[in-house]
């Protein structure tokens, strides 16, 4: 569906994309990770046809520079930084809807509502005067309501409050299985339930490309037991938040863990490693 072959891009003799090779298939849900300056944003802008680059790039069999309208009709995009657009909220919705072949205006209002952003209330307000979270919610609603074949999001949840994040992830999980996603984020743990592939970039190259285990995709869960030592109020609170419980033995906690949450769980309890005496995990 999307193929990049030997892509090179440089700015003032600084190589930002270096002989990049990448192929995305329909339904790939990718977490794009890498440090600042790794080339993630340049890759995204190249996919959107905003940068010229050496090499071969095919999006849905088309060239995003020469057939940009056809390509961009299939793409939903949420940028890392919400731009200071002068249009009012209503005008921005109308503007996007006018350019889209898919009737999307009602969908935008409904989706924004689910993300706890009421467009009606803010319809006349200039977009740039909205709070960071509100801007992000509207841009997400605009991108999702196009029903895109390919969704590109650059740090989409960065400005969202907890409720907004939950609503956003709920909406992501409802997208059709054939929607391809490229989600750039510094918090992979949050994305784990939605992705089936992790791509790591460094110095303009792909240094790691991993398909996630079938267990995660199948949504399997794990039986988990953890023995802690001492009082450890903080670790107990953390385990409570994961809905772990302790029975007659006050130091022995047990609970169920979704396979997809395994990495996130490890990251959270790693800080209490000195208080963990024993940890057992078994697939159900």
């Amino acid at each position, binding site marked *: 569906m999307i193929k990049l072959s030997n892509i090179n891009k440089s700015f003032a003799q600084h190589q930002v994309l270096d002989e990049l090779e990448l192929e995305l298939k329909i339904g790939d849900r990718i977490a794009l990770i890498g440090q600042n300056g790794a080339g993630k944003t340049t890759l995204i*802008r190249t996919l*959107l*046809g*905003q*940068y*010229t680059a050496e090499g071969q790039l095919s999006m849905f069999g088309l060239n995003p520079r020469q*057939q*940009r*309208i*056809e390509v*961009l*009709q299939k*793409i939903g*995009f949420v*940028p890392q*930084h919400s*731009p*200071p*657009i*002068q*249009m009012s909220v209503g*005008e921005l919705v109308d*503007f*996007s809807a*006018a*350019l*889209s*072949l898919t009737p999307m205006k009602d969908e935008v209002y409904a989706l924004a509502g689910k993300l706890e952003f009421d467009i009606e209330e803010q319809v006349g307000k*200039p977009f740039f005067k909205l709070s960071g979270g509100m801007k992000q919610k509207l*841009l997400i609603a605009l991108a999702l309501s196009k029903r895109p074949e390919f969704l590109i999001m650059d740090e989409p949840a960065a400005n969202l409050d907890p409720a907004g994040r939950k609503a956003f992830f709920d909406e992501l999980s409802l997208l059709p299985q054939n929607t391809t996603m490229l989600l750039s984020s510094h918090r992979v743990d949050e994305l784990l339930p939605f992705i089936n592939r992790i791509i790591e970039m460094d110095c303009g190259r792909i240094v790691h490309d991993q398909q996630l285990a079938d267990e995660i995709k199948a949504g399997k869960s794990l039986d988990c037991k953890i023995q802690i030592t001492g009082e450890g109020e903080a670790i107990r609170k953390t385990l409570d938040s994961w809905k772990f419980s302790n029975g007659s033995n006050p130091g022995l906690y047990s609970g169920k863990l979704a396979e997809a949450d395994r990495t996130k769980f490890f990251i959270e309890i790693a800080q209490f490693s000195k208080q963990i005496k024993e940890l057992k995990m078994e697939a159900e």
Partner: protein
Amino acid sequence: MSTLTLPLMGFQNSFITTVIAEIRESFRAKWFFLYTLIFGGAIVMLLALGITESQVLGFTGLSRLLITYIQLCVAILPVFILITTVRTVVGDRESNVLEYILSLPISLGAYYWGKLTARFIIVFIPVLLALSGAVFWGAVKNLTIPWSIVGYYSLMLASLAWAFLGTGMFISTLVRKQEWALGLAFLVWLTLLLFIDVILIGVLLQNQLMEEVIIGIALLNPLQVFRTGAILLFDPEMSLLGPASYVILDNMGYTGFLFYSILYPLGLGWAFSWLGYKIFKTGDLV
């Protein structure tokens, strides 16, 4: 829908959408408010000062008002247009607005020409309304309305506005920083201002340059062309202007120069805007 009709439909749709969005945005912008205040306010101020009652070199009534208004326009219209237009593309690029807007299925041509068209409408409407207001006031006061002059001035102002809009868009696509765009805009304006008739006379006297060079400079300078054309209607003998204008008139004739003063800035605007579009389309968009 065939793949051939999609881009065309996309262009029309994107173009109209961009024009409407840009006009709406401009109506809210502070620069537009200031612009309207200056060009509308100038006419009101001139009327309030009773300029139509005064007589200078035989000009009185609305003709006197128009000649003063046109002198004001030649002094401030180009710089105003340049300053506000040079930020169009480079400003959107710097603020990441362009990254988002161009991620939508909008044709590059529609975006660029839509912005330019909207800017032209926005820039020209206040000037046209000011001229219409003067005509209306003249009709109320039973003054003779010089229709041919009003019509010609409107065309000339449109042509001048287009020339500087095109130049502004060219600069806007050429540079990557707003500061550079503004600096370049001022440089262009100052250079053109330096080479209007008054300076040309000085150059001619001091350096005894070839007549063809002086005339060439005068004919290439849209400000000089506008100024000469504006005076020509009132003063066919060109007694108000300097030697360069005399020679131009001798070579091109009255009607020839009137046509030139409209067509040349128009062509210049098209040339620069087309160059700007080529730069915009072929390079990195953001």
